[in-house]
């Protein structure tokens, strides 16, 4: 029961995105523009090490905030919440489905944004470190997906939801962002070995797990009415 509800909502969200192309293209465009801005702001042709990692992390964060702000807007505007609450299904299915959709959005975004990053900022050793980079980005995407879904569900019923979402989301995401940036930094430096720093991979994975458990335990309270 549980899985089929989750899959149905996830399928609905992905289909909606595929037909309207509302969120992911905007995220991709925003990330490319951000790379250009960073290029002029920093005035360097080649970014390496921690500087490159910071640029990539912040850009992904900006793109994620766009998706997080829009995540529940359709449900709210078109009465999807009421319909979902009337249906005899497990409430946490919504959490899984929305987090899944956000995760897919982030992965698709990175398929565009990471090559664009390689093209514009030409970090060294990128091809060599690609498997480690992918590992860290997947873990970071889980953090974006879980925390983003939680924050979006919290903010969507407030009056100033476009403000509340980011100001709550950014501090909650901070430990994940620290771990992502510190994990990617050594991968993109000159003479990188290609394996990600295990400490930061572990921190990121544990933080993902911690937030997933919290969101799982508390999500019900955000949907009651």
């Amino acid at each position, binding site marked *: 029961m549980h899985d089929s509800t989750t899959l149905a909502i996830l399928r609905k969200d992905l289909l909606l995105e595929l037909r309207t192309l509302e969120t992911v293209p905007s995220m991709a465009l925003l990330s490319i523009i951000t790379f250009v801005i960073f290029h002029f702001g920093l005035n360097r042709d080649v970014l390496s090490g921690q500087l490159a990692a910071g640029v990539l992390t912040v850009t992904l964060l900006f793109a994620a905030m766009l998706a997080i702000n829009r995540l529940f807007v359709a449900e709210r505007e078109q009465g999807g919440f009421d319909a979902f609450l009337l249906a005899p299904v497990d409430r946490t299915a919504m959490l899984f489905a929305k987090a899944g959709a956000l995760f897919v959005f982030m992965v698709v975004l990175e398929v565009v944004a990471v090559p664009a990053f390689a093209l514009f900022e030409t970090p060294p050793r990128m091809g060599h470190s690609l498997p480690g980079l992918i590992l860290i980005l997947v873990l970071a995407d889980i953090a974006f997906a879980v925390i983003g879904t*939680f924050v979006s569900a919290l903010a969507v*019923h407030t009056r*100033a939801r476009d403000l509340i979402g980011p100001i709550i989301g950014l*501090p*909650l995401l901070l*430990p994940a962002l620290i771990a992502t940036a510190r994990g990617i930094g050594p991968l993109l430096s000159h003479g990188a070995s290609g394996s990600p720093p295990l400490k930061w991979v572990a921190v990121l994975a544990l933080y993902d797990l*911690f937030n997933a458990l919290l969101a799982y335990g508390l999500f019900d*309270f955000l949907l009651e009415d």
Partner: protein
Amino acid sequence: MTTHARHLRGLTIVTAVTVTVALILVFFYAPLDANQGFIQKIFYIHVPLAIVSLVGFVLGGVFAVAYLRTGDRIWDMRSYCAIHMALIFSVGGLVAGSIWAKASWGHWWVWSEPTLVSYLIVILLFCTYQPLRFSIEDPERQARYAAVFAVVCGAFVPINFAVVRASTQFLHPRVLNLEGGNLPGSMKLAFYTSLVGIALLYATLMKYEMTAKATRSEVRRLRRRVLGDDELRPLGRTAAPQ
């Protein structure tokens, strides 16, 4: 007389006495620090403020769990007041810490110091508690969402400290470590008295805030009974529970 007001006078007297004794111990009993001299005295204010405010944030989360389990609005009020007071104390702790950092390390702000940075992140996070409450109009939903937020952020406090600490080297003096710190006995006495004093101050102020809020709503209820509904101005939107 509401339930909050019980023991308020006694608690106030105990707090005043403890804080006075702590200040006397700090300034006249504890020896001057060999390296830092008189400026080190701010340590007896800064560290208790920081510890009490962090415990207050976590306490807000614990009260919020109680609210989500029971649905009793009194727990929402406790959670709100705990976080409100902790926020005030934490800003005090941050300012005191910054003064101490300038005096002993030479800079107002030190990024390589994990305790300072994670403390700032926690404060930034809890600064969003009031805007969140303020932007939800329905009181029941306001209480429920604020409680969910408080639980997540209460759990976030220790995790955040662990992550930020992992990212930098130590610089902060470790006062409360597992080996019992490295303070001499007289300093330890002054420090713990001060810690108890600040903790009592937190409890007293929190109790005053709850009493004031309960009294205000009681007065409003009585005015409505005496004057009728028309004479009362409608309540404005507020972040505080009613």
